[in-house]
């Protein structure tokens, strides 16, 4: 099986752009109401550069996506999602296996921790990406189980208290809302699962 990178890219970008309002609504509850708009701007810029990105081998394409997100998303999400894709690009071979993916995502989670000075259970994207990285490496992952885990971990950020980012200024009042970064990570992962399953 050789997944079509163009299709994956378009699928993820379309999903993030379509859910921009939902992400912004989540962010207006506990942040500064710009996550959806920022991510939309970033992925629109990725789509605009699609021909150039797809001409590259996978690692270089991922790095190019990362750089575009860094430059265009702004806010804290730009460098955090930028770091995700830049690290995946650094760690993945041209034709990765599931084991490669698990290892690369684990490395990316560590890089995001360092970039955001955050840890698990701080009510961030890490609460989705960390468990998914571990699950990919545990030998039991299916498309359905990864999707379910991403969804469940995003939901699990609702009762958490924010420790990092602007949401942390709200303290206890951040409890009861899903973290927008956890939700955007869930969206990317579920869309990737959908697209990969469709090509399989």
């Amino acid at each position: 099986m050789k997944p079509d990178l163009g299709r994956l890219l378009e699928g993820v970008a379309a999903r993030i752009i379509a859910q921009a309002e939902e992400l912004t609504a989540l962010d207006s509850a506990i942040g500064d109401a710009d996550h959806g708009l920022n991510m939309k701007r970033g992925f629109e810029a990725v789509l605009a550069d699609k021909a150039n990105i797809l001409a590259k081998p996978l690692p270089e394409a991922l790095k190019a996506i990362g750089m575009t997100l860094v430059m265009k998303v702004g806010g804290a999400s730009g460098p955090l999602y930028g770091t995700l894709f830049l690290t995946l690009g650094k760690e993945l071979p041209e034709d990765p296996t599931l084991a490669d993916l698990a290892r690369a995502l684990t490395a990316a989670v560590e890089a995001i921790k360092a970039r955001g000075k955050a840890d698990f259970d701080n009510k961030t994207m890490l609460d989705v990406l960390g468990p998914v990285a571990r699950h990919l490496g545990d030998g039991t992952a299916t498309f359905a189980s990864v999707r379910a885990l991403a969804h469940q971990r995003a939901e699990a950020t609702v009762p958490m208290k924010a420790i990092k980012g602007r949401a942390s200024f709200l303290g206890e009042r951040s409890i009861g809302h899903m973290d927008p970064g956890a939700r955007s990570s869930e969206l990317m992962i579920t869309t990737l699962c959908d697209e990969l399953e469709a090509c399989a």
Partner: protein
Amino acid sequence: MKDKVGIVIVSHSIDVARGTADMVRQMVGDTVPLAYCGGNPEGGLGTDVAKILKAIDEAWSDKGVAILVDLGGAETNSEMAVELLDAGRQGKVVICNAPIVEGAVMAATEASGGGSLEDVRRTAEELSPQ
């Protein structure tokens, strides 16, 4: 003036960044390379890695560049920008853990006297709560 450490001011607001730079210029003078940036790529409140890279370039000095930031995203984006510099420049840029306005004035004063990058950072960070 490239024999002095450069100062870069990164705020979420271009007005805060410009105002801070004005204070540095008026109080410390124009012997120190100084650049500022603020606002997201669309011109709203926020910070932007591309603008930070440009500001670092404008204030570049062989003695190095000290960056002063305001809130969290400014620090995250500045760290990202530093990582994107050439390997040769990376080791010559520091992000100061200091209040932006006071830190910029203190850092620029130290820089204007010919202090090293480490002197400049230490002076700015003397203001931070321990």
